[in-house]
């Protein structure tokens, strides 16, 4: 695939050869390479540190000099059996979905890395929030969590009461499997990954064992793909070894925002779980770093940007209530821009109006 990066520099004859080769590859893989429109949010200039020519192997970039500078870059992606929008789990964060080429593949092995064992809480939390998103469509299906005895001892057992409150996973839905050895854990995960009765299977492993090589992960990936269920491979304190997983996310904890009250953020409190997510590997090979916050009330992610305006949720637990019938005549429509700007003027954020706070500080 590295050949393709140099397409531009080659002669027309060489290009013909490349196209023939590409067709052959497509024939072997059984899918035609598909062309994606790179979303504007992921244009090269939007992502700092990304150099165009440094696409790693695993993706190919097909471009002509004319559109090299434009935002409508074309990306060639291949290897995904089903590339329909339904094949992806949408995280709800457009930027992340775009960087992953549509979302996290549903029927695949996905790696979630924690750099240190002490990140196990964040890694588990992120994986469970993904599972919680999966469960939106497959309500009531059980989840299997396979781990070695070592990791359960080092990082603690998943605690059913905590999972229920945060991710809406009922204790009766959970199944744990503690394997004495890694080989057994891999066997259990393989057997579970081929079943459609589980909503998702989580395999948790510590470190970079030799057994978890390309072959083992390929087996897991193939089973997950044929069953159409996600298999999340959590690796605590592991190296970025070559694996067959199309996506690797590196997750660590991010400081939580303060708790929101009606009177504003409560100073010194610890709010919703927050994760720092790095894309280590994906089909599109677009790098990116995201700080995500999990909303346990609505079971959804929210991205935290530098100057986000905190919004008090309309309801404490659960989604917004249904809109009221009728119309309120005493006030103008809420959607009108005049009112919106006026409302924003009532509670300006600190970044927007630093002057607003300065008198108080002086006083």
């Amino acid at each position: 695939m590295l050949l393709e990066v140099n397409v531009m520099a080659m002669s027309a004859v060489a290009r013909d050869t490349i196209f023939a080769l590409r067709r052959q590859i497509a024939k072997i893989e059984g899918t035609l390479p598909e062309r994606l429109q790179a979303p504007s949010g992921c244009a090269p200039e939007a992502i700092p540190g990304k150099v165009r020519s440094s696409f790693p192997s695993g993706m190919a970039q097909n471009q002509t000099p004319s559109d090299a500078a434009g935002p409508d870059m074309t990306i060639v992606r291949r290897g995904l059996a089903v590339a329909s929008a339904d094949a992806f789990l949408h995280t709800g964060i457009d930027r992340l979905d775009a960087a992953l080429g549509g979302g996290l593949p549903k029927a695949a092995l996905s790696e979630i890395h924690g750099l240190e064992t002490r990140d196990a809480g964040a890694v588990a939390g992120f994986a469970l929030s993904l599972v919680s998103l999966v469960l939106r469509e497959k309500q009531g299906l059980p989840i299997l969590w396979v781990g070695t005895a070592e990791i359960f001892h080092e990082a603690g057992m998943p605690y059913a009461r905590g999972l229920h409150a945060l991710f809406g996973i009922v204790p009766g839905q959970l199944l744990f499997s503690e394997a004495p050895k890694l080989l057994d854990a891999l066997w259990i995960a393989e057997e579970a990954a081929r079943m459609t009765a589980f909503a998702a299977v989580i395999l948790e492993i510590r470190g970079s064992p030799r057994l978890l090589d390309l072959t083992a992960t390929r087996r897991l990936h193939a089973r997950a793909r044929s069953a159409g269920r996600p298999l999340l491979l959590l690796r605590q304190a592991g190296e970025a070894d070559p694996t067959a997983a199309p996506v690797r996310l590196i997750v660590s904890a991010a400081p939580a925002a303060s708790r929101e009250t009606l009177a504003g953020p409560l100073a010194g409190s610890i709010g919703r779980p927050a994760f720092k997510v790095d894309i280590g590997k994906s089909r599109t090979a677009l790098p990116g770093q995201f700080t995500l916050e999990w909303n346990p009330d609505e079971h959804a992610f929210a991205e935290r940007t530098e100057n986000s305006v905190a919004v008090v949720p309309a309801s404490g637990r659960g989604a917004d209530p249904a809109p009221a019938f009728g119309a309120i005549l005493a006030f103008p429509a809420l959607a009108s821009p005049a009112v919106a700007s006026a409302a924003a003027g009532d509670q300006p954020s600190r970044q927007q109006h630093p002057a607003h706070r300065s008198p108080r500080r002086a006083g």
Partner: protein
Amino acid sequence: MISHRDNNTQRIAALDERAEALRLKRGMGIADARAMHPSIDVVEADPEADRRLLEGLADWCDRYTPLVAIDAEDGLFLDVTGCTHLFGGERAMQDEILARFFQQGFDVRAGLASTPGAAWAAARFHGDRIVAGGEEEALLSPLPLSALRIAPETRASLESVGLRTAGAVMAAPRAPLARRFGATLLLRLDQALGRLDEAVSPRLPVAPLSVERHLAEPVVLTDDIERLVSRLAIALKTDLERRGEGARTLALLLFRVDGAVNRIAVGTSRPMREPRLIQRLFHERLTALEQSIDAGFGFDLVRLSVLSVAAFDLVQGDLTGETDDDDADIALFADRVRARLGEAAVLKPVVVESHLPERAVKTVPFAEAPQGRAPAAGRPAPPRTAPPMTVYPPERPVRLFRSPEPIEVPATEIPEGPPMNFRWRRALYRVARAEGPERIAAEWWRQLPGEEEAPTRDYYRIEDSEGRRYWLYRQGLYSSAAQAAPPRWFMHGVFA
């Protein structure tokens, strides 16, 4: 020669023919025997090993009848009622048993009678005799009193009044005998003569159903055994269907040619009768046990027994022929994992009403967990026992350590406040923010009387300088009393 310690002296417990030829006897002191024959070889008795051997033999005798009982230290009762025709009659069966034991190197005496007492006497005083029904009296009459299975003291006192044979006791009037020597004597006599029933309690529970196959050519390969299992399971299925039941526990018994018996059991989470599934379960179990099963010269009898059964609900399949029962899939998966990796391989959390975090969730093996996660379409939903809804449920971590890990807390800002920094697993953490405390007291109602009250715990949610969130607690309170131990800190869980 084997010695054992009895009343602080070493005595002869058992001896071989050559020692007997030297006029040594059982019960003789070892010192006396050594004085007579200094060259004798004495081995300390090992009752445990004898017991194990006897149990092994009892296992092997399972091939003749499921009702095998161990009798004292040196005997086995086999209830062969209804089994003899399988081996060509009583005589042929007894001959086969004796021949097989002889080939294995055992010197065995056997007796077959319609009562356990008569069979016991026949085995010990005749060696190889079959007593027809009604002949018990003729068998016992000439035998000494020890043939009656009575205590030595009773025997000695009977002999002191001149009753030296069982026949003499039978001829004596019953009422004085009972008054003088106790009811046990007459009970034993009546049992031996068949006037009273005596139950032989089998060593192992009798399987409600079992199918077996005798093999002319012993099998060695695991594949062959698996194939046999599926054949046996097919035979088992019709029986289970007739009874309307499914198997909950299955055992596979492999009788090795030289007498060893392998017993392989698998449990199922829900009643099962499908031969294919049974074979898959045993496939996992045999794979796991591959190293520990020694086929030796092969197995010549394979038996599949159902140890426990449960009612089997028939499920109507849809037109495509697939029942699409996810629960069944999961149950099978759990059974297979369990068959390979042991009872605790698949765990299910069960919520318990308790304030203590480690007690609030109990993980139980899948098979023991309450079933019925999602009610099937046809069945009514079970009544829900929803926990009382609290407006703000307390925050609980996503991972909880098996046992709280002690941490070092050098300083807290205020005595009863959260720590400023702490050391856990030899790394120092700086506390950026803290929430709490949430005080959780010990459960006094579970405390035994007289037991010291467990200290209360103050839980804090902590966020360190890098954004990781932990659940710490302080056990006990700071006290002004000088002798009071300072409170200890523990790490109990991590938050997402």
